[in-house]
């Protein structure tokens, strides 16, 4: 476990850089996580995806299906990869503070 320093607050991350306690997520944390993903700036498009993920997670307790993410944001998978080079799970979900999906995935 490592800690991410966000304006003096220590945020615990797991071995893959995902948040250990997703409830600690704030926009500042998202920006700090984006830097770990080598994203220098969070554009409006980035926020649209991250906010969508956040809302889905709040309502459903897990990340959405990738196809649902694409459909509801209007971005195809190619665009998601352009925005988040590590992809929807390891990039976008990580920045949105969602836990890693596990099992047969």
């Amino acid at each position, binding site marked *: *476990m490592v800690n991410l320093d966000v304006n003096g607050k220590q945020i615990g991350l*797991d*071995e*893959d850089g995902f948040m250990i306690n997703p409830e600690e997520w704030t926009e500042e944390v998202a920006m700090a996580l984006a830097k770990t993903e080598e994203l220098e700036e969070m554009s409006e498009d980035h926020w649209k995806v991250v906010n969508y993920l956040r809302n889905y997670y709040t309502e*459903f*307790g*897990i990340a959405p*299906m*990738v*196809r*649902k993410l694409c*459909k509801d944001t209007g971005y195809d998978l190619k665009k998601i990869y352009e925005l988040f080079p590590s992809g929807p799970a*390891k990039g976008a979900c990580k920045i949105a503070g969602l836990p890693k*999906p*596990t*099992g*047969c*995935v």
Partner: protein
Amino acid sequence: MASVPKPDQLLKIDHRPPQTGWMDTPVVFKKGTYSHAAKAKNLEAVDLPNPRDWSPDQQDWKLPENWKEIVLEGLRERLSRYRSLQIFMDICVRCGACADKCHFFIGSGDPKNMPVLRAELLRSVYRKDFTTAGKILGKFAGARELTTDVIKEWFYYFFQCTECRRCSVFCPYGIDTAEITIIVRELLNLLGCNIDWIAGPVANCYRTGNHLGIQPHTFKDMVEFCVEDIEKLTGVKIEPTFNRKGAEILFVTPSGDVFADPGTYTLMGYLMLFHELGLDYTWSTYASDGGNFGFFHSMEMAKRLNYKIYAEAKRLGVKWILGGECGHMWRVIHQYMDTMNGPADFLEVPVSPITGTRFDHAGSTKMVHIAEFTADLIRHNKLKLDARRNDHFKVTFHDSCNPARSMGLFEEPRYVLRNVCNHFYDMPEGTIREQTFCCGSGGGLNSDEFSEMRMRGGFPRANAVRYVREKYGVNTLACICAVDRAALPPLMQYWVPGVEVAGLHELVGNALIMSGEVPRTSDLRGNPLAEGDGDGDV
């Protein structure tokens, strides 16, 4: 996928053993070849011992003080509980027939991945403490002292075994090497030494009924997303039911198919098939995973997680259970369930309501594999199929290890494939059916951080796919397991680019002509059909 050396580097495999003897060659935890340690919260969720934060690459594993006593007592208990284990410990003559059969040995060259030597890691401890020869002669009798280094070696190599049982097919004594792996993992569990990719799904499954932790309203949302897509593609509106009491059949499939592509296309195939048949079935948001990562953990945990399927069948009052395209679920059902939680005598012997076929072989577990169910439908001419809708696919079939080696399901999926596809080509003998090569990621080892070893272990499978790709232009690898659907796409991308992975029932869904459907212009993934394929003529 985590960073992995390039294929040409990975192919430089040295199969020569190291200079030092195996007992004197310490284990090295190299990134990419081991998985993260189980997190404390995931052990606490199911009341397992020694929850703590630790990492395999650190010196101190924070074992309980009396760890040695715990392990030896655990082994003693298991030797008396499982006569099979006692026999497996005593009977091996180290003939080496299994040695080159393991995909991890082929792909890594590490001699401790030879099944015979992997088992010897336990057998040497057994000899030392449980046999007279070992007690007196020690190393001369192949015995060694149990130390913390042995525990580390166990952890490394028994979480480098996918429990695929290919080696067992070649063992003249029929030693089930997967059961040796299971026992060692059980012993490690007594010390709190598991991997998180197993402990996490187990904790989720115990809480929500599935590995992903999908809650009931989310499960429904996900299935309904697929329903919308089906309507868009076919014009047919499907109305699946959830937790419906009094349904004739309970359908259980891996949660990976509900959540992740390409499994979701397989899920669409199930929904379409059941709708077209007018099947009286229900989904359950509690028995919401056929998969059982508990089986990669311990027999006890396999039993605990398997139980929910039968508890739910009883609660809903169904007659029998139909199981989807899952791998290890079928090993648990076919080989263990009956004595773990069975017999399920509150259910009826499954009878297909469409064909009248009575599945007597499922007379005790009351659970039928969907490949058998669909093959029976086709055999009785109950489905209208247009195989030309799969003409853009040149298909080969990966026998998923557990349905193949644990229940002998060889012909049914091939029979279905030959009826829904016009271009089907088997991989070479020796790599299919009971000798099928593992995807390299089963047994709870499909984590990202284990990627290098997964690519090594999956190499023999990929190599056989490459053969049919070069010979016949194969572009689709069909399979009947959700770990496969998660693990084979990156494996193909790495070793055989240009080959996509599909579930059997995705291809059934493409070919199935539904009453009232609009002409299809694309397959379930939205890819356009080859010219003239969608006109619906039979």
